[in-house]
């Protein structure tokens, strides 16, 4: 009896949270599910179409293009940001005012709103008035992110690297700080080279924070919208149109709510699946 009453009290405490989550996540998600299986012809005219929209969206060549670009983008920025972030964290001073100063400087890009980042880089890279764009021109390098797809890509990637590498670096720095000094001392006694210290002491200790870094950066970059939207508007052509921009065009531009909803769900499930698989693979040896 007593334990049963306690259980009921627990419900009371949990309910506010459940209600909050319901309104913030479950209800909107269910609305999307609702849209994804109906053809909405007018405010009062809806037809149930089953998985029609899913089939249609999955066969859309434009979406295939956006999907591939998105994957390429996410893996490109991971390939740059992880090694660079680790490298920066290894070079960061470990204590004293230099350490604090480095931390503040590194955190600055993280504090800038996304659309401001886009705007900054849009101006920064302009050939006529932007510091970087003009400098490249001055060196005789032809560079124009509004006309050349390769240049546009490079700009988007460099912008993201500038914006988010500090996050990876800060995570790794915290991981490195957690290594007791005795490990470094023992490595010196054992005659380990700097590479061996990195490979066998630092990298294993960084594994956990790197898993978090990869998850965060993958999810975030897979949903990137604002920066390319401000910088290139998805162009030139479709060359920097990533998934979320494609989705926005579908939902808001063309007002195809059904296909957009179906695609949203596929998008959501893909990120979920990727992150889950990644996490399982990376954390398995620890639990064994």
């Amino acid at each position, binding site marked *: 009896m007593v334990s049963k009453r306690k259980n009921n009290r627990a419900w009371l405490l949990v309910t506010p949270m459940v209600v909050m989550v319901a309104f913030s996540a479950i209800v909107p998600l269910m609305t999307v599910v609702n849209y994804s299986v109906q053809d909405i012809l007018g405010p009062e005219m809806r037809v149930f179409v089953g998985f029609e929209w899913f089939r249609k969206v999955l066969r859309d060549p434009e979406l295939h293009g956006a999907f591939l670009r998105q994957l390429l983008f996410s893996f490109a920025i991971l390939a740059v940001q992880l090694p660079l972030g680790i490298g920066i964290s290894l070079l960061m001073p470990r204590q004293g005012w230099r350490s604090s100063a480095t931390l503040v400087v590194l955190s600055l890009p993280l504090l800038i709103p996304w659309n401001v980042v886009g705007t900054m880089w849009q101006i920064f890279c302009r050939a006529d008035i932007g510091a970087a764009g003009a400098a490249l021109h001055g060196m005789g390098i032809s560079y124009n992110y509004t006309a050349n797809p390769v240049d546009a890509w490079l700009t988007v990637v460099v912008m993201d690297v500038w914006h988010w590498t500090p996050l990876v670096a800060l995570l790794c720095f915290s991981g490195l700080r957690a290594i*007791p000094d*005795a*490990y470094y*001392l*023992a490595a*010196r*006694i*054992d*005659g*380990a*080279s700097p590479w*061996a210290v990195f490979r*066998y*002491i630092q990298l*294993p*200790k960084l594994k956990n924070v790197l898993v978090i870094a990869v998850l965060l950066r993958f999810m975030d970059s897979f949903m990137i919208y604002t920066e390319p939207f401000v910088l290139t508007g998805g162009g030139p052509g479709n060359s920097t149109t990533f998934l979320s921009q494609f989705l926005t065009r579908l939902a808001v531009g063309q007002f195809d709510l059904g296909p957009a909803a179906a695609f949203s769900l596929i998008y959501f499930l893909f990120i979920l699946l990727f992150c889950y698989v990644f996490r399982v693979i990376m954390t398995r040896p620890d639990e064994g």
Partner: protein
Amino acid sequence: MAEITLKSIAHSYSASPGSGDYVLRDVDLKWRDGGAYALLGPSGCGKTTLLNLMSGLLRPTRGQILYGDRDVTDLDPRARNIAQVFQFPVIYNTFTVFENLAFPLRNRGMRGSDVTRRVERVAEMLELGSLLKQDASDLTADTKQLVSLGRGLVRDDVAAILFDEPLTVIDPHRKWTLRRKLREIHREFRHTLVYVTHDQTEALTFADEVVVMHEGRVLQQATPEELFANPAHTYVGYFIGSPGMNVLPCRIEDGGAVIAGHRVPLPAELAARAAGRAGTLELGIRPEHLVLGPPEGGVPATIVFVEDHGRFQIASATLGEGATKDAAPDGAKAAIKLKLPPGAPVAAGQTCRLGLPPERVRLYEDGRAILGTSPATTPTTSPATTPATTTAAGTGD
């Protein structure tokens, strides 16, 4: 392997040290090849710093370190070829036990069957043979510490193996086993071992010779029994033994020492040497050496408190006639501790006389021993005869 010499070593962690910044001052030591040494002192006395200087993890601010005739002061640990085991076990988590043990060899470019042969030999010595294929991260703390030790032993040409309080994280009942294992390994392979600890039991049972440090200085380097019998400094007297030596202010008067207004006879030679000294004189006597109710003479005392430890009793007393626990009219009263066999007739409140056998009394001027008699025990005595009272009483905090 070689003799290790420290020549007037001073060290400060500050880049531009003032006179108060030194953690080590003027340390001169010689570690014989193949000796088992303990470096004993309270936390913060500079033991670990001294160890790190010897292994090359630190460069001394001043002074010189020699391995044999070779000056290694500016060499890093890799070039010095020395082994060190730390307070907390350090193992390479991604490695198996085998790979952990092979790591120092592979770092020095050794490959193939040479590595396997040496690792297997060390594993057998430490009884790790069955664990070689296991992931090192799964081991218990004491086994990890064995692996750390193994990484030192696997290079059989190391100059010395240094231990920095290696048993801190080990279960009490495993400490004893590990310490015995260290002794065995020492007997078999005759590496020079230097063992840092703040625990006198550990130091006295491990080492042939103990170096007692305090506030960055070496106070005494001697065998355990010599430390017990003839502390060179009152601090050594306090620190070694449980309870530590009684140290009482005294003055010298016609061939005897006067404590609490009563004359204690001294050996003639000691009294002669102590007479006329300008510094503060103190008399030291071990609680074990006090005689309760001597046949003749003695200093009157009142027992204040008795602790029964089962195998012995410790009585606290105040010296002087009619002294009570609270009354100390002229400083004549002094507290003193006695270590008595179980069942000795002693009770709180009892008045008695305490005998101080002349041959057991030591005199100190400003903390330093006044040598009067030839040492009661010579440093060549076997360490197996450590005074039983010392080992039995060591609580090992």
